[in-house]
């Protein structure tokens, strides 16, 4: 069940109506918990036990570590949480990758190696909810958060369906307090949520799903395409990933908003970032923030020598790459961005912290976007041979002759202009002052236009695989 599917609308319609009909906060939370488990179970009910295990372990580990002042015991309970959560993640997501990689290395060294990989499916959303539960335990360990007394709240925090399968990674410190008080429908910005949901739908079903066949066509046989096609495909894929993932985030935020819960934003115009550091502060904000707070800063952050900071950046970005998927391509993606951030860090040390503006700023935006776009080759290329072909294309060494119609840039350019107008705040939030009947009429027109431009078969979200 994905947000762009008709059955999700049916599901959500029922949950929305029941939720606001129930009188007590407790009843509503039980409804949301059951709905969340149904939502996840629609993919594969067998993996519900993983979510439940994570929930139980973190609930009790956090309670235990909060109950004692003995640092050794506290560390032991934190370790329990880390080992169980990362162990499950490692088993389901990384086990085969590490076994394969070890096997290849040992084979290269002529050392006999016998260990079989496991035939296991990757549970959808495991990277997201694992990071979410980890943040709970770590925040309590750091005494930034009091453990929740309610197991129901804990279960709902881990499994709340709007963010369960592809984020945003919601932190307990933001979400748990919202579960304590009953909200009222009259306090919900319904119009804003509906607009946000439709914008998310537009990004996913209209933009992302429309350009995806062209990108698939290129990456399925990229040796046949010329160099310009490599650039067009990587650019289009960068746009697709943005439209896809930010679209999902918008719909998740809007869905939660309609139920009276607030999530922070997950994207903030990343393509207008003038450097890579700014880009990562604006792209997948909930993950970037998580990595900053729980990895980069504990590693030492940016306090220290240039080499020390660059090491921290590299570790953070490589692990960020690995978070996205178990494969060397993701690790290379991390290296690529870690290297880029390192270069930017050195530049800033040399030239100061002043941000580029005007024409220089525009050029910086272009360079930053291009860096991100070409890094997408690591993400999308299905295998190493294909990756090499993409890079040959990006370096204008491709021998293929097939092209991608450059007219694909027209809709992308139109979207970029809309995006820029919005970035500059030229488009006001018109719905706030529009009478409800007029808003509803306009919304109906917009919904129908979106449907007419949607792909009939909803493609899964790109970030589901992570």
């Amino acid at each position, binding site marked *: 069940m994905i947000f762009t599917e*008709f*059955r999700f609308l049916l599901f959500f319609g029922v949950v929305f109506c029941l939720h606001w009909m129930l009188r007590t906060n407790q009843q509503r939370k039980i409804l949301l918990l059951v709905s969340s488990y149904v939502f996840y179970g629609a993919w594969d009910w067998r993996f519900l036990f993983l979510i439940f295990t994570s929930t139980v372990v973190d609930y009790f580990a956090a309670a235990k570590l909060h109950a004692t002042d003995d640092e050794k015991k506290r560390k032991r309970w934190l370790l329990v949480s880390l080992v169980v959560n990362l162990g499950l993640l490692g088993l389901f997501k990384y086990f085969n990758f590490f076994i394969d990689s070890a096997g290849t290395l040992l084979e290269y060294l002529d050392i006999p190696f016998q260990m079989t990989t496991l035939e296991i499916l990757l549970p959808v959303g495991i990277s997201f909810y694992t990071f979410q539960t980890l943040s709970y335990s770590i925040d309590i360990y750091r005494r930034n958060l009091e453990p929740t007394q309610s197991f129901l709240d804990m279960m709902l925090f881990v499994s709340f369906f709007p963010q369960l399968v592809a984020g945003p990674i919601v932190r307990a410190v933001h979400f748990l307090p919202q579960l304590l008080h009953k909200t009222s*429908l*009259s*306090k*919900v*910005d*319904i119009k*804003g949520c509906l*607009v*946000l949901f439709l*914008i*998310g739908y537009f990004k996913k079903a209209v933009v992302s799903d*429309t350009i995806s*066949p*062209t990108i698939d*066509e290129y990456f399925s046989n990229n040796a046949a395409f010329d160099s310009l096609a490599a650039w067009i495909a990587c650019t289009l894929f960068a746009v697709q990933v943005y439209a896809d993932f*930010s679209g999902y985030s*918008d719909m998740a*935020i*809007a869905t939660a*908003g309609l139920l009276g819960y*607030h999530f922070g*934003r997950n*994207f*903030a*115009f990343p393509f207008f970032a003038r450097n890579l550091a700014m880009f990562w502060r604006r792209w997948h904000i909930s993950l970037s923030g998580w990595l900053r707070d729980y990895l980069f800063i504990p590693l030492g952050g940016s306090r220290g020598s240039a080499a020390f900071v660059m090491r921290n950046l590299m570790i953070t970005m490589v692990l960020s790459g690995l978070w996205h998927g178990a494969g060397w391509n993701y690790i290379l993606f991390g290296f690529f961005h870690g290297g880029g951030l390192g270069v930017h860090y050195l530049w800033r040390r040399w030239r100061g912290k002043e941000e580029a503006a005007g024409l220089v700023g525009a050029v910086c935006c272009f360079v930053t976007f291009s860096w991100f776009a070409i890094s997408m080759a690591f993400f999308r290329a299905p295998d190493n041979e294909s990756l090499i072909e993409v890079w040959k294309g990006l370096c204008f060494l491709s021998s293929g002759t097939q092209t991608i*119609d450059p*007219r*694909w840039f027209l*809709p992308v350019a139109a979207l970029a202009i*809309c*995006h820029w107008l*919005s*970035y500059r*705040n030229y*488009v006001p*939030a*018109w719905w706030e002052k529009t009478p*409800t*009947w*007029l*808003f*509803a*009429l*306009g*919304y*109906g*027109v*917009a*919904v*129908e*236009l979106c*449907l*007419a*431009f*949607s*792909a*009939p*078969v909803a493609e899964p979200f790109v970030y589901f695989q992570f």
Partner: protein
Amino acid sequence: MNPDHLVLDSRSESAPAWSWPRTVLAFLCFTVGVLGTTWGIHQAYPVAEHSPYRQKRSLLAEAQPEPDTLFFGSSRILRHLSPAVFDTTMAERGIETHSFNMALPAMMTLEQESLLALLLATPPTALRYVIIDPEEFLLVTPPGQLRTTRSIGWHTAPATWITLQELAQSERRLQQKITGGYEHILACVYRAFHFGQLRTQLVTNKLHQREELPSDQTAPSGRGFMSLDQAYEEATGEYRERLEGRKTAFRTDLAGYERRVDTLRQSLMNSDGAFENEFAVVRRLRDMIRATGAIPIFLIAPGVGHGNRNYVRQAHARGDIEHLIDLAHPDEYPAFYDPEQLFDANHLNSHGAEAISRELAHKIADAVERGELPRERTP
């Protein structure tokens, strides 16, 4: 209007409180907005023709000499009826024909009706015979497969209603009926609301250069026909693997195949199962073809995996259709059920295709000689 600017905090205190009348009014206005826009889109861009239909129709329009005989149906027509063999055999019997294979894989009866309506709106001028193999009414598809442009295209409200009735009366499990019914209703809703229409017409059709129908299905050199083993020889990659899988599965389970043939024999003895809607569709197919001045010849091609099509036999017995050639009898036509002549359980190989094309030509020539079918086109 970008969501990156939206901060969904609670509404301001000055905003009006929620109320039933305002909600009902908003819902009505929303409905008016949706329906008004739907109507506008329908006026500007009527339902798009599925691209493979367009490809096949343009091949038909380009075919020389102009076809006067069309083969229509699913893959059992596409992979079985060779226009070259048919025309040669007919010529040997003294009847000149120029046939063309218009079949497409997995084309069920109601979809045939929709394609036939498109095709016969501007039929070849010299059309004499239309040989049509009405398939089953229900297609076994995994969820989601019905939400393609092709499927949405034929899900008009009447066609969907017939499908739902067929589904309800079928022997499928309740869960299959519910999920299948949901998929068909969804396809109908998508059609009604022009789901993907503008995308297809304004973006995809203009910017996608690739053909949507594989060359073995357009098969211009075979006048729309290519046997499955020939297609297998030419296929590459995943498609070849798929065909290889089908071929191997058939070869390794010949006992299973024999059991299916037995089941078919049993079903031929069972005369129940048809209902009035099915006869009505058959009559519509017949009338559409007749309206072009051509003779409709109904055919039941051999195969074991498509259930029984007794409704066509019953329609013939009732007099709804005049000409029926029934080749789906394992005892009467053992060659078409001989594993040596088959590519997989439901499709003949090149030899089998040649044999059935000849058989069909002879059957038609016999009917012509008996005076049951006209030799020339009836004005």
